[in-house]
């Protein structure tokens, strides 16, 4: 089975070549400014303006990294490659590691800020989640569950069929990491559909995913991601299978990939432990539960915030009354008066 994917990169040569090589500084510069713009939007804008700014940044990021520039956004794999290349080929090492440094550095201040404001996969999952989101809120829980089973089985059939069609001759696991991860995600969803309360437990799987991903990369396995086909403009069957699984899973459970398995998200979740800016839980919280119902990541419960899942989308801030508007504040600034500068 062969699939044609036409060239959809407008620029396929480096705009800002590093030392005359193919390593392009332009995507890193673009990422830096996108994150800067996001930070400004998140901290200075409020309400609907903040969401408009977020959508704008997401769409620009999707255009820059999918259509405009050729760039691999794989942070973990890039970091592992770079560590292997240091001393052997420093320019290539720099090319692989620079994106990780920029995103992780921002992560130490803003946690999974990159996920909610820049990552195109997050945008696509949000978009596909909206297909079923409104109806899901209206449907009876039993109806929702059975509909989820139907859809999940359908997505599984499609993914396994596609994986079968493009199956490689040998070494399935080592060369089809994205497909394996995609299938694992679908299996997780069956469990979560069966029991909602397992959601919190399965959110911890992303750390194991990160560890396995990193170990494979360090061992020299060319791990593929579900986004390679988008960012790399590659007919990589494994990543195509993975992408179908990720988008299909998003139909059933909102942001399924980002919630349970994304290794890059897990890396930023680790960084979020150091984050200076967080969504805080003010004392004035009435525990009405509105914020939990709008959070696409399921990071909020009345009186509790899962900071490793929060992607700083800011949707909760819009649905929570006046006293919740200032939650995006310095974590250590409670009571120090610094919150007021965002008001």
């Amino acid at each position, binding site marked *: 089975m062969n699939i044609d994917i036409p060239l959809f990169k407008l620029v396929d*040569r480096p705009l800002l070549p590093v030392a005359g*090589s193919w390593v392009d500084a332009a995507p890193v510069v673009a990422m830096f400014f996108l994150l800067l713009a996001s930070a400004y939007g998140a901290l200075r804008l409020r309400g609907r303006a903040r969401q408009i700014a977020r959508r704008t940044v997401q769409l620009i990021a999707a255009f820059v990294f999918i259509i405009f520039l050729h760039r691999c956004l794989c942070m973990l794999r890039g970091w592992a490659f770079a560590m292997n290349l240091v001393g052997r080929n420093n320019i290539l090492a720099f090319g692989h590691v620079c994106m990780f440094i920029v995103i992780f550095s921002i992560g130490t201040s803003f946690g999974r800020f990159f996920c909610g404001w820049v990552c195109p996969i997050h945008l696509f999952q949000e978009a596909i989640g909206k297909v*079923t989101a409104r109806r899901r809120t*209206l449907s009876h829980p039993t109806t929702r569950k059975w509909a989820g089973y139907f859809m999940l089985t359908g997505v599984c059939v499609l993914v396994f069929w596609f994986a079968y069609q493009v199956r*490689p001759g040998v070494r399935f696991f080592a060369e089809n990491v994205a497909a394996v991860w995609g299938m694992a995600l679908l299996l997780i969803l069956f469990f979560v559909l069966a029991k909602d309360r397992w959601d919190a437990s399965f959110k911890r799987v992303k750390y194991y995913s990160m560890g396995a991903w990193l170990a494979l990369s360090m061992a020299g*396995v060319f791990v593929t991601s579900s986004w390679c086909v988008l960012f790399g403009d590659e007919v990589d069957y494994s990543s195509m299978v993975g992408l179908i699984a990720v988008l299909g899973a998003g139909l059933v459970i909102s942001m399924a990939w980002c919630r349970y398995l994304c290794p890059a998200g897990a890396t930023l979740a680790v960084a979020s432990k150091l984050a200076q800016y967080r969504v805080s839980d003010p004392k004035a919280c009435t525990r009405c539960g509105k914020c939990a119902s709008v959070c696409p990541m399921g990071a909020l419960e009345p009186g509790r915030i899962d900071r490793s899942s929060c992607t700083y989308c800011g949707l909760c801030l819009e649905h929570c009354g006046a006293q919740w508007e200032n939650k995006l504040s310095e974590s250590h600034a409670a009571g120090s008066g610094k919150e007021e500068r965002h008001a």
Partner: protein
Amino acid sequence: MLPGRGRKSGMRDRLLARLALSAVLASLLLAANPLPAAADWHTFHHDNQRTGVSDANFPSPGLKPLWTFSLGEHTWRYEKGMSVWSASPVVGRIDEDTVAVIIGAYDHNVYALDAANGELLWRFTTGGALNAAPAFARVMGRPVVYIGCSDRSFYAIDAIKGRKLWSYETLPWTYTVGPARPSSPLVAEVAGKQVVYVAFSNTDHKPGRTVQRGELFAFDAATGQLRWRHFLTTNPISAPALVQFHDSQVLFLGSCDGNIYAVDAESGEDIWSFVTGHRVMASPAIGEIDGRPVVFCGNFFGMMYCLDARTGAIVWRHKVGHMINATAAVAEVRRTPMVLAAGYDRCLHAINARTGKTMWRFPTQKYIAASPAVALIGGVPAVFFNSLDNLLFAVDIATGQKLWESETGAMLWPYETRGECVWSSPAVTSLNGQAVLLFAAYDGRLYAFSSGSAEGGTEPAQGSTARSSGQPTGRSLWLRFVVPALGLALVTAGLAVILLGKRAVPPDAS
């Protein structure tokens, strides 16, 4: 894909194709390769232009194993950059009776085998793994083998006795040096002297004073005297290809820094460089479009570039599905110049060299990482290539139909890192009028195939033609339509249940 024609027309086309192929070969060989006999595969990808085209003719597509040769013991530990044998075997006549197959291996040895029966003629031990193909040349009447080694040395070996003639250490040993990545050498006559060119990439992890040098070396082929060395980049460099202009000779090289370099062969000075969007692992291949010499080279973005050899200007570019690791083969069929590009998208692409458009694609089940070779089968130009599912194919260049396939043993190591491994490629030569296909497979064996009798020929398998002519069978129809339809139906059913199912809250309440 070209449409089918009548039998007479087909014969005429085959005759024309053969004539055209012979003409191209003759012109290429006369232009820049006066040393070896026409049927010899004396360097990586056949000739100094790296065209990968041999005029050896297999009488029928039923190729059968002639002999195999295996190393005594194998290294089972995977190492980046290793190869089972070498980038490719080379063939040269060492005396009137003997044609030798010369190949380097990861066990630090260069082997010379009798091409007729695969018996070992001699073995030369170096200080490191030999991942690049050697080059064979006749220098001052003496057959010589040149090979670069990961011990950072370049060796010239007497091809008859297997003794070292001279060697050159490209970087002195220290406790912190890494294994070198040499390219396949190239031997050419420049300004009346035979010169051997080789690229070396050396690293030394000296704390604070790291050395990363990708250099091109030019040696006097007879004496080993260094003519010049030229620092090109900090990255590994692919095997050079040579073009003979009327006033100069120019070397073309690809590099992992994404550049394609043009260097003057006499002085070593830079002429032009062209930066692509990703690593260039392949060696450039030289062709000609309407009398204009052009350079074909693919990169890891999957882009095949056709550049003007004089100026480095883009003539066309063509995106294949995935990374290109292999050197392209350049052939001419039915007066149409063609580029045969192998990709990690599990396809062999036949591209019209004039327009840069795909003519046909041949799908495989696994990546095609090694370079294809072109020869004739029954007078019809065919391309030989291998995919990483341990299969070796012969495909009709004109139509994209499979003519033959053979399976080799399983790969020695459990996985490979793309861009780090060196993949051996098939080579085709002629032995006393009999065409022989040589392939150092990834199971650690060197295979030689020759054509059986016409009666014993293997018929092309059904349903194995290029994608555009394939017709779905009953089973594939079921797989193509029924299963995905079931999946889609289930997803639709889920959506329908959500839309039409029992509601917890009336829509008006929202």
